Every structure is written in C-alpha cells, then in structure tokens.
C-alpha cells in the first residue's frame, strides 16, 4: 500500500547575502490515509515551511528547489497553478494558528463557508448553507443556525477556530494540515479543540499533518512523530516509542527540558545555547553546536539515516556508530 502523501527529499531555499539558505533541507516522510503525523520542532526548525512547501505556498523570495510531493502518486510540483488551487481547500484542507488570518472580518462566517463549498462543488446556495449549518453543529458550535449570520469579531477565539475547522472540512478533504491549531487558545479551550480534532479524524478517517512545538499536543493527537531541527529531520518514530525512548540527543533534550507537573525540585535539564540562525548552521549535523554527545564527525558531515528499529528513523552519528556495534 502506498501512502496518501509522500514527501521526498523536499528542499526549500531563501536567497541571502551568503547564497541560498536551505531552510527545508532534504525532508522525506509519508502520511497514510487516516493517520495523524506530527511535525515537531522549535521556532526556526522549518516545520511550517515544510508544510507550506508541500502546498506550494512558500512566500517569496523563497522557493522549493528540489524534491517531490506526491498525493496519491501524483507529483504536486508538476501541477499547474489552477490545478494546485483545486487541491488546496479541496482534497487538502488547512487550519492555522490565528483564525483571523483566513477569515474575512467583514463577511458573515456562514457566507464564507458557503463560498468555500461552492468554489469546489456545484451546489445551490441553499444546499451549501444547509451543509454549513450541519458542519457548524458537527464542530460543536452552539446554536449553529444563528452563528451562521455572525461576523468573526462577534465570536470568541475558540468559536472562530471551530469556524475555521468547519471551513477546512467543508470540501471533505482527505488531508488536513493543521499548523499550531491551538497555540493561540486558552488551555481549557485547547483541550476542547484537540478532542474535536481527534473525533473528526476518527469519524472521517482524514489524515492530519499536525505542526506543533508542543510535545503534549503530539501525545494527545499524533500516531507518528517527525522531529525537525534547523531545517532537517532528526528523528521519526511512533508516538509512544518517541516519547518513551527518544534516540536523538535533540529529542532527548527537548523532552527533558519540559517542566514536569509531577516532579518539582531539581534544576531543569537544559539544552545549552540557542538554535543557530540559518546562516550559522554548521556544515555537519546541525545540532552539533549544542549536542552533549558530539564527537569527531559531527561538525563536519551530515549523519546518514539509520533505522535502529522498525518504523524508527534517526539521523545521528552516535546512533549510527552504536547501532553498527550492536549489529556486529
């Protein structure tokens, strides 16, 4: 069985004084039908840019400089602009952190959903409105009929996010790309939205590419996790395997530095230093400047992909070396 979405060796670059900076560099992953894959990283890791690249939405002057993104085997990079537009908001829906970036402030929210539906399907206005109403009910908007006629500013942050989810679902997408969908929300509202996304995903068997910086959200929602650091993947694994037994030193550091709710007391283990900016990325492993287990090859050469266990991919010289010893 092939994956619904296959990303292969995706590279995106921005021009700069020192030549092109590859902010997404050789990223490959699969997304199966009905699967939730989390793309995790801190700011500047390239996680959002990876999703934007896959949808061919990289802001200028950046551009995708290499790789393929196959949806059901068809390479999106070969499609015309019009064909691509039909994919976005059609087979692929999108949810962003800030709902106001995709809601029009002067148009009633119901009309916006109706428009989105009619852009992709030849249905009457009344039919589209009925569908918008049932979508509003499905995403848990109280009193959906009345809310169709509300303007965005009349809705709370949580309700606006629900409207955006309804709009993303309106064309029955096979893939939902959710970029930090709950980051702007309060924690009690976040819990509601996460629970909604989980229910929708199960009921509709939609695949979700979830972009987040929060490993707690990963645990709530994801089936698999891909960790990014400075434009590259460092580790890919099943959710429980990654959280229980992270192999890459960066994943390990990230998990340790989260203040635990249950264990106060000792100093938090830190990852020393800061994420380097793209013009200061080391030649070899990009984490080598902060890695506690750095050794000779790390600063000079990129680690190759290793597969220490089924379903697990790690890019780390140390893991490569120890795995090699184990094999002997």
């Amino acid at each position, binding site marked *: 069985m092939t994956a619904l979405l296959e990303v292969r060796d995706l590279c995106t670059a921005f021009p700069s004084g020192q030549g092109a900076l590859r902010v997404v560099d050789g990223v490959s992953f699969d997304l199966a039908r009905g699967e939730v894959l989390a793309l995790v990283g801190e700011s500047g890791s390239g996680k959002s840019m990876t999703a934007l690249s896959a949808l061919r939405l990289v802001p200028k002057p950046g551009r995708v400089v290499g790789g393929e993104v196959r949806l059901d085997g068809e390479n999106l990079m070969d499609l015309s602009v019009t064909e691509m537009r039909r994919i976005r908001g059609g087979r692929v829906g999108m949810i962003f952190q800030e709902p106001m970036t995709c809601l029009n402030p002067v148009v009633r929210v119901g009309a916006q959903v109706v428009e989105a539906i009619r852009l992709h399907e030849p249905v009457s206005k009344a039919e589209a409105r009925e569908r918008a109403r049932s979508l509003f009910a499905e995403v848990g908007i109280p009193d959906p009929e009345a809310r169709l006629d509300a303007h965005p500013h009349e809705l709370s942050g949580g309700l606006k996010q629900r409207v955006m989810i309804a709009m993303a679902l309106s064309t029955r997408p096979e893939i939902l790309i959710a970029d930090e969908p709950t980051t702007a929300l309060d*924690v009690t*509202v976040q*819990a509601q939205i996460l629970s909604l996304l989980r229910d929708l995903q199960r009921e509709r068997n939609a695949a979700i590419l979830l972009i987040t910086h929060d490993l707690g959200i*990963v645990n709530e929602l994801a089936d698999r996790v891909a960790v990014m650091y400075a434009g590259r993947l460092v580790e890919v694994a099943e959710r429980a395997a990654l959280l229980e037994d992270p192999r890459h030193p960066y994943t390990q550091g990230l998990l340790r530095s989260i203040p635990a709710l249950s264990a106060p007391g000792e100093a938090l283990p830190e990852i020393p230093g800061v994420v380097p900016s793209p013009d200061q990325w080391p030649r070899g492993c990009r984490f080598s400047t902060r890695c506690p287990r750095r050794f000779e090859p790390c600063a000079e050469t990129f680690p190759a992909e290793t597969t220490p266990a089924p379903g697990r991919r790690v890019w780390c010289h140390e893991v490569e070396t120890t795995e090699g010893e184990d094999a002997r």
Partner: protein
Amino acid sequence: MSRGSEPLLRVSGLRTWYPIRQGLMRRTTGWVQAASDVAFTIEPGETLALVGESGCGKSTVGRSILRLEHPQAGEVVFEGRDLLALEAHELRAARQRLQIIFQDPMASLDPRMRIREQIAEGMQSFGIGRDDQERGERVAALLARVQLDPATMDRYPHEFSGGQRQRICIARALAVEPRLIVCDESVSALDVSIQAQILNLLRELQDELGISYLFITHDLSVVRYLAHEVAVMYLGQIVEQGPTDRVFEAPAHPYTRGLLAAIPSIDPARRSAAPAVLGDVPSPSDPPSGCYFHTRCPEVMDRCRSEAPSIVSLEQGGSRCLLSEPRTEPRG
C-alpha cells in the same frame, strides 16, 4: 498565613475595574471587572504564581501592584508601606525595590540604546554606583550573572536572540537591587529549551539573592517548578490559593481541576479523555450571577446560579466554591 513577621508584600481587597465609556459625553456605561477583591501575600525569598487564562485579570493585578494601573480600592503593602497611598515621589523610590519583566523583551528594550546604557540607566537614576566606570563594571558583572558575555554590552538589542534578550531584561531588573520582581508571562514566548534556561536562572537568582517573584502565567506546567504558593484566577477573582504541592495534588476548586486536566501530558500512557471544562470564558464586563464559574462548571448545582461563594474559605487555604464551604444547613 502568619509566620510571625510581616510578609514582603501583602495585597488585600484590591479592585481594578476599567470603565466602559460610550456616547458623545463619554459617559461610563459599564465596567470591565478586571480584578475584584484580590488578596494574597508574598514572603521574602518566595514565589507566588498567579495563574489563569486570558482575560482573568492576572496581568492587571501585577500592573496594579506597581501602580501601572489605577486600582479603585484595596491595599498593596510592600515592605510595610501601602503603595496605593504613596505620593508620586515616594512611589518612585519604592519602585527601585519592585521591578517587572514582561513577555516580549523586544517591546521593553529600547532598540536604539546599547544594552550597557539600558542596564545602567536605572542604577544612575537611583544613585547606584559612583561613576560610569563603576556602573560599567556592575553591568559586566550582571551580564556575567545572567550568563551573557560581558563583552557584548556595547551591542544593541536586535543583535541578541529572544532568550538572550530576556536575560538582558533580567539583568536590567537586577541592576537596581529589587526585593520583588513581577514576571508577567516572562517565559511564555520562548521555545521550551530556552524556557528551561530562563526558569533555572530565575531560581538560581532567588536562591542567591533572596528575591521574591510574583510569577504571572497561563502555563501551569512552569508553576510547579518555580512557585511556593499558587493563586488561580478566574474572571477577576482568585478562586483558589495555597501551597503549590497542595494545589497540584489536591485541587479544591472545579476550575483548578479542569485547568490541570486540560494540560496535555507527555506521558505516552496518558491521553486525556473528554475535556472537563466546556465553553468559553464569559465577558468580564458582564460576569454570570452567583459563582462566576457556574456557566462552565462540571459540578454545578442549583445554588451556584444565585449564591456567590464567599472568600472566607479562600483565606483558610481552600477555594471560592460552595462545595468547599463548611456545610451549613439551609435555614427555614
């Protein structure tokens, strides 16, 4: 919570409401009840975390203590003096001992001033250090203390990363030798690996210098690590207050329980079930009748819609909830 001596800070009966003005005459037509009847104490060398969701009034409380807002009622007794009763020139002197660090360091640093000047500015105005040279030496020591290279003191804020800028703000606050620092969402904008560095730094400084913190945050996960006491706010009121371990291990208020349950865990064996607290926070200009939380409370009773829970139980270290009030038989 008497420990024999006067606490460093004692806030009582604090009320900060913002008028809603409408019409040509700008008549006051209502009030945003940002903070009502807020009371707590902070001991020397300790941290009180003030937690809650957006709009609960936690930042208003922090700003009111510094008189960056204009509270209508209450007392803010800091080192024995009521800050709300001070004249402007007295307030200025008191502020040396009372500093604030915000969420966005870029907004609180002057982009056109070298960081050396910004850190030395407060020292100069409070007469700390004899001359520029001595102050320069102090700036170097402060930068080293917050783990920045003293050689960078002649740079501008934009030349630093977000975490480094927050260190600069901490150094600037420390420069005037404060006893209390209000940290208003000071680590919220940072990546988790950087956040850990800043949290560790804040705690080391407390151990070394005996500073107290009022730590304002929406993120309960950082509270356990840093705070001795926690106060949970909802719609302008403190709904639960107590020692950190007690609040986390035996939360008394349904809202606190909901907040704690809503935090996504990183324990792979724990994926939460249905969310406990539904709906959104009501508007602070038109709070619900009775208990403010009754519209979202999973344990709501009929009484909650009309009876406001009292603050008496709160002062006993409990919560502002009819369920935690001592049982009284309804009369007649």
